[in-house]
């Protein structure tokens, strides 16, 4: 809280590894008091691991200071586009830590009937919300949900005997990078579908691609411009007509939750990001959960496990008949799933409908407040987020990057920048429903002030942010000469044997 205290200016230069002193310790481990069993043979053992030696107080101060060098939703507005950075209810953390839940062992699911009940009811709720009634909670995040979904499609095609001819997955050019990457991981090639002027996919371009070589199309609903894919029902029908599946990227469900259901639109399978729509904390980059919700046709391929109720009312983990298999060693991000369940139980349907209502109203309000000051490449009424372009400011030499950095000086987290890729100097702002009217106004006022600064004194913006513990960092340097661990690249890697390195170096260079 003391700003760049004298003598602590270069805080980042000293890791935990560089602090403390030999012989200090932060934990008191009991000594074994009983009969000593000899250790295994020496060649199986090691000397001690190099780790920091700090007192407990030193460690606590270090990580407390680190936390204070972080900005979270609890710090202030965090309208990172495509991320639904909403308030994370504290009661859900409390619930997830109940000892009966937190200590349940995954290898004995029959003894965890309470947890299984939560998971089953969550499956049902997500099935009801998406209109895709068959749900697996196994995926650890959105990207793993995508992988599951596309692999399911692959397996379905295989069973139909069509996998050899259907090698292509269509992906709009506005899609999140995980979409094409997933398609590739599932062994498909990617065909990109351009976006039309109205921000929806280019239907003519799509029509031109539709044939028997298409395995599936991945659509994000609403899309990453925060816009509705007008005519998505026809798109789905067209795809089905050529025998392809429709995959729904549900990362943006927050915009439409309770308003329309993926299943009703013709989507065959979708993943949801519980760490977005369903309020679980983002944790600095996870953990999340990315359940997949499938139509009856795809249900047999769902990843394991799925929770099912037996005839006696006993719940059990179940492996669907043609399952693509497991995605994790155990049963998914259960701690996250419990939080999402608690959230749904707190809100109920009316609460969920209020979520989309207020998320969308906030984004549109922000849109009208900012439209006079920033270019809006797709000037339509939007849903949960709005994507501006910094192109007008770019002409004055100010990049979206600079605008983002300057926002920080206003105590605000910048939006997503440079995504979606199809928008020049993109500023992708998703306020979510948990921001208040005043929060939106404050954000808009800051962006308006920055737009003025961009005209008046563009160079000044390049010095932003100035009110942070550290200034702009040199990312080129980081990538050019990577320092990726303590004590730095000067020291030899700890392990140095190996015989395939040369061969590998060639392959990696390819």
């Amino acid at each position, binding site marked *: 809280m003391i700003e760049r205290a004298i003598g602590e200016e270069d805080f980042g230069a000293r890791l935990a590894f560089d602090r403390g002193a030999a012989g200090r*310790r*932060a*934990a008191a481990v009991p000594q074994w008091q009983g009969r000593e069993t000899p250790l295994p043979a020496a060649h*199986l*053992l090691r000397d001690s*691991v190099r*780790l920091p030696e700090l007192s407990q107080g030193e460690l606590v101060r270090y990580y407390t200071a680190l*936390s204070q060098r*972080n900005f979270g939703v609890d710090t202030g507005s965090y309208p*990172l586009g495509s991320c639904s950075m*909403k308030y994370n209810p504290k009661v859900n953390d*409390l619930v997830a830590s109940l*000892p*009966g839940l*937190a*200590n*349940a*062992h995954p*290898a004995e699911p029959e003894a965890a009937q*309470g*947890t299984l009940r939560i998971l089953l009811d969550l499956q049902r709720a997500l099935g009801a919300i998406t209109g895709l009634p068959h749900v697996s909670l196994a995926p650890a*995040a959105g990207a793993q949900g995508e992988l599951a979904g596309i692999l399911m499609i692959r397996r379905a095609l295989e069973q139909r005997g069509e996998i050899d001819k259907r090698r292509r997955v269509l992906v709009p050019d506005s899609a*999140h990078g995980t979409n094409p*990457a997933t398609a*590739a*991981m599932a*062994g498909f090639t990617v065909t990109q579908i351009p976006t039309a002027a109205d921000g929806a996919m280019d239907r003519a371009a799509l029509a031109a691609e539709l044939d028997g070589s298409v395995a599936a199309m991945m659509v994000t609903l609403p899309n990453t411009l925060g816009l509705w894919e007008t005519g998505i029902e026809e798109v789905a029908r067209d795809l089905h007509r050529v025998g392809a599946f429709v995959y729904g990227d549900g990362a943006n469900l927050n915009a439409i939750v309770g*308003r*329309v259901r993926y299943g009703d639109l013709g989507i065959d399978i979708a993943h949801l990001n519980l760490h977005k729509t369903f309020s679980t*904390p983002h*944790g*600095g980059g*996870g*953990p999340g959960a*990315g359940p997949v919700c499938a139509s009856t046709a795809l249900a047999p391929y769902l990843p394991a496990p799925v929770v099912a109720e037996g005839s006696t009312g006993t719940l059990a983990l179940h492996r669907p008949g043609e399952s693509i*298999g497991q995605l*994790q*060693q*155990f*049963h998914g991000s259960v701690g*996250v799933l419990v939080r999402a369940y608690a959230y749904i139980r707190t809100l109920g349907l009316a609460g969920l409908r*209020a979520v989309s209502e207020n998320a969308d*109203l906030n984004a*549109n309000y922000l849109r009208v407040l900012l439209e006079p000051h920033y270019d809006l490449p797709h000037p339509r009424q939007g849903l949960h987020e709005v994507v501006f372009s910094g192109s007008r400011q770019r002409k004055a030499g100010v990049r979206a990057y600079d605008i983002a950095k300057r926002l*920080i000086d206003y105590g605000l*987290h*910048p939006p997503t920048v440079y995504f979606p890729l199809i928008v020049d100097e993109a500023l992708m702002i998703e306020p979510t429903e948990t921001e208040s009217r005043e929060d939106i106004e404050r954000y808009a006022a800051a962006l308006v002030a920055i737009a003025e600064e961009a005209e008046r004194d563009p160079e000044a913006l390049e*010095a932003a942010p100035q009110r942070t*513990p*550290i*200034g*702009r960092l*040199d990312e080129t340097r980081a990538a050019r000469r990577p320092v*990726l*661990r303590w004590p730095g690249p000067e020291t030899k*890697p*700890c392990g140095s*044997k190996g015989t*395939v390195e040369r061969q*590998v170096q060639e392959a990696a260079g390819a």
Partner: protein
Amino acid sequence: MKGRAGAAPTPYIPNTDADRAAMLARVGLASTEELFKELPTDQRDPLIDLPPSLGDLDLLEHLRTLARRNAAAQERPSFLGAGAYRRSVPAVTGSLAARSEFMTAYTPYQPEISQGTLQSAFEFQSVVCELAGLAVANTGLYDGASATAEACLLAARVTRRSAVALLEPIHAGTVDVVRTYAYGMGLRVDVIGSAAQLTDEHAAVVAQQPDFLGTIRDIEPIAEAAHAVGALCVTVVDPLTLGLLRAPGDAGADIVTGEGRDLAGPVAFGGPSLGLFAAREVYLRQMPGRIVGRTQEQRGARRGDGSEAPPRTGYVLTLQTREQFIRRERATSNFSTGQSLLALAFTITLQALGPQGLREQATLCYQKAHNAAARAAAIPGFAVVERGPWFQEFLLRGPLPAAAVRAALAERGIEAGLDVSDRSEPAAREALLMCVTETTTEREVDALVAALTAIGGATGTGRD
């Protein structure tokens, strides 16, 4: 909870009717329904069957009631491991990782206000490298099994081969997940009984350490066998054991994966988890996941007197051209949201333990387990299957079929080890895979010994 007329609809949504009215007017809409006007009218506002909303008090009571239905609520003595180990995690870990600045942030795209996440991730990479004995690590993957699957994909990429070999005994979940990932890439998965079965078709061999039935492996000959056929050696570790066991990298492993969850917090029915992933430096640009690098400010801060301070040290996401959001279909993986908070907690645990504490905790685990095994083996009718040096898990065979012993223990309020009699290894025949960790108490072992003695007595194996 029921809103007063005009009130905010939930405690999580600030805007009231008055706010909405003002905003709608500005947006130029007559009602919030119009926000959804582009959605297909036929499908609009479906009837969705969800249970009624609960106030906090009722929510807590509801979840407490459910939690009580888990046997874990009764604090039974437990000897279940098999991939999820009840570990001692220092109290500092929970209290620091729960700080909301860590918990409510996301992927650190803005390094100036994310040094907490970034610097911690750099600490994590450093800790993982030290444990593994390898030069590079990422910031963590979903779990140990999916990290292992990613290691197989990496090996296939760099060797341009299309088969991988998994060495038994290995956790069935690992095999399953590797198969799932392999399916997409068209890799063949061979489950082999010995490293001698490796061929030059194999991109990698995957060896679990300790193996699934608890025995400590010598990684060196396995790595040598792999390297002899041009394959990579992937070792899947339980990180606590590395407080005692040789660093796999030093023994020749090329990639080390593992499950970090149990040093980050409670087993939590197996998730969220934390995949550890370290590799030799040559594989750096083929690695999946996010990587944090150290750098410095573009320029030093301007001082009061106009001079420039020396640039300060900071951390950024780096080598991002491997990643999906830049390289899209040519990325090394589709990985995006990971397990940062668990990586943070894992790091704090390891750094709280330090070199001395880690060794002590591993030793305590080892000693407690061997003591318990010795006591169990001394009970008439019971035997511990001999399989070489082991760490915390042993195979226990009794006078009854494994399932019957397990049921008899359950009746006595004891959660036995996993029944592994369905496995192919002869040693696993009618055996329970009993696990004892540093958290197992003397009281629990006493209860186990008493129960086993009673079971042995009841089946008339008597003293011999």
